[in-house]
């Protein structure tokens, strides 16, 4: 209350003056002090205050929910935190029977599948964004933007379904044999081409993160001032040189942010990955081999976990995943914000 409230609501204080009726006659002038306080009426003032506190309550409930989530995850994982300490994150065993748990295979699977996804999706998403904002005819722009937004609306489980029955057979029969013969020497594409495995997870993830990366890149590219483009063209640049020098260079930080935001999504993605990655806690160099991610081990084993330590270890993986995605997302937001600052799309950030 007091000065801080007054400060926060100064915008609303201004019109309150307008509520005071001007003293026109003597009788009203006598009543003036009473009217001044009571123009809204004591009951209404209480209603206003109650409403304000109710809205504040809604806002605070959001804080409370996040606090509860963190608290619960820490409480539920304390058994495993005590038992394994930091060693949990570099330990490779996952043996529920012996009660020996380490998160390394899952961290490895999460990072590798996400990196494969980025390697495929970044060039495609940037190409699409550049095409939509700088090259394509106006009539096509809306259609392409809508279509790529639709990709973002498809649920994870449907991507997974499609991946199992369409993508995996294609990988197994055509792509993986071809990769094995042409690039087998790298060691990344060796072993039996099952279809299911790290590569399949990476490919389906890449399809899922493209719309995110490309829609934020579009926003960032649109935020680059028109004069930059005109200046480059006026100096005799070709269209590509204009895009490279005038647009992409200015939007670097924002594009980086878009990519990291895509990474954040890929790290936490569960269903589609669980359905095609093979779910085996192993660390293999070949991308054809099955793997396991932090999200999918939780999805598969949480309801079946017997024993408190097993459950606790799974919750600790969840906690680690949460912290990882929060850090990644925060980094991305700062980068995107640094470019789109002052644009209408981010008015809330003022």
């Amino acid at each position, binding site marked *: 209350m007091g000065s801080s409230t007054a400060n926060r609501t100064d915008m609303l204080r201004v019109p309150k003056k307008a509520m005071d009726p001007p003293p026109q006659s003597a009788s009203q002038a006598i009543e003036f002090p009473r009217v001044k306080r009571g123009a809204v009426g004591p009951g209404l003032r209480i209603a206003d205050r109650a*409403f304000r506190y109710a809205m504040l309550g809604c*806002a605070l409930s959001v804080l409370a929910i996040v606090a509860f989530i963190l608290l619960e995850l820490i409480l539920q994982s304390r058994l495993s935190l005590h038992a394994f300490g930091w060693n949990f994150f570099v330990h490779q065993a996952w043996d529920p029977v012996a009660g020996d748990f380490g998160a390394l295979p899952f961290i490895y699977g999460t990072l590798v599948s996400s990196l494969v996804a980025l390697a495929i999706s970044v060039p495609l*998403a940037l190409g*699409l964004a550049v095409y939509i904002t700088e090259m394509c005819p106006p009539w096509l722009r809306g259609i392409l933007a809508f279509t790529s937004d639709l990709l973002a*609306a498809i649920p994870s*489980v449907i991507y997974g379904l499609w991946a199992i029955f369409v993508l995996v057979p294609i990988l197994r029969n055509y792509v993986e044999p071809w990769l094995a013969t042409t690039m087998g020497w790298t060691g990344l594409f060796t072993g039996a081409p099952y279809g299911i495995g790290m590569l399949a997870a990476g490919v389906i993830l890449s399809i899922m993160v493209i719309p995110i990366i490309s829609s934020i890149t579009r926003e960032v590219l649109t935020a680059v001032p028109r004069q930059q483009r005109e200046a480059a063209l006026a100096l005799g640049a070709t269209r590509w040189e204009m895009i490279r020098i005038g647009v992409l260079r200015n939007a670097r930080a924002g594009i980086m942010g878009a990519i990291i935001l895509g990474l954040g999504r890929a790290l936490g*993605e569960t269903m589609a990955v669980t359905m095609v990655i093979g779910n085996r806690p192993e660390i293999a160099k070949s991308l054809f081999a099955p793997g396991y991610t932090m999200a999918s081990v939780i999805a598969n084993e949480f309801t079946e976990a017997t024993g408190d330590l097993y459950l606790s270890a799974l919750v600790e993986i969840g906690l680690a995943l949460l912290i990882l995605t929060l850090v990644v997302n925060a980094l991305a937001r700062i980068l995107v914000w640094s470019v789109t600052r002052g644009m209408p799309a981010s008015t809330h950030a003022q």
Partner: protein
Amino acid sequence: MPNSTFTKILGWKRAVVDHMATAGAVLAAVLVIAPLLAIFIYLVARGAGALSWAFLTHAPKPVGEVGGGMGNAIAGSALILGISCLIGVPLGIGSGIYLAEYGRGKLAILVRFIADVLNGVPSIVMGMAVYALVVLQQKHFSALAGGFALGIMMIPTVTRATEEMLLMVPRSIREAALGLGVAEWRTVLSVTLRTALPGVITGIMLAFARVAGETAPLLFTAFGNQFWNWNLNQPTAALPLQIYTYAISPYDEWHQQAWAGALVLIVTIVGTVAVVRLVTNRGVMKGTS
């Protein structure tokens, strides 16, 4: 002066690079659109065959028996999404109103930041947290827990949409209402929020479309059920959960049903998104989504 052959060669190279860049961008666009088309074609081709009245109205039959459907899962999804809207919409609109009308200073910055954090929580972690918060207290899986998880996930989107839309309402409208002696709370609800309503509804529908297909948060909350269930305190089937279970099963009939379920789900979601796009592109609320 550079000699003319030199500039000629340079110009030729630059033209080639320019054309290659254009070709690259077009290729990228085609490669992105291709999987989308492929997914839709497969959904319709595989799903439409298994789609029938029985599919929409019957509960699953045991493996091996012909027939059965996902009626209970569709009903369960509706139940869970109803609960999630009851939780997510009021809280989201309330926090949006707080941020737009009263939110100044550090608390507002904190609330915005936390809403962003909530938006970034992986859905599987959300499911685990709600399991600890609700299911462990109740001692069993329930539609209520599922609705709670999805409701929380709706809050950030609704909050943001509400705040942005309220800030777009001209201040003069607020002042006019207050000047007429209308109470502050009434002004916010009947004048400001009312003016911003189309945009707020857009935000709610987008949030709905986002959680309608969520599977991961329901794994340990609603859990799934092979039978009809209307009890909020019992494990409940949900369409995305059923699709997941059937997709990873070894039975061909179940795969068919998974495709049909996916078709129903995608039609619901894409329908919602398309309606939002049509309305927002009408000019009233352009640039909101």
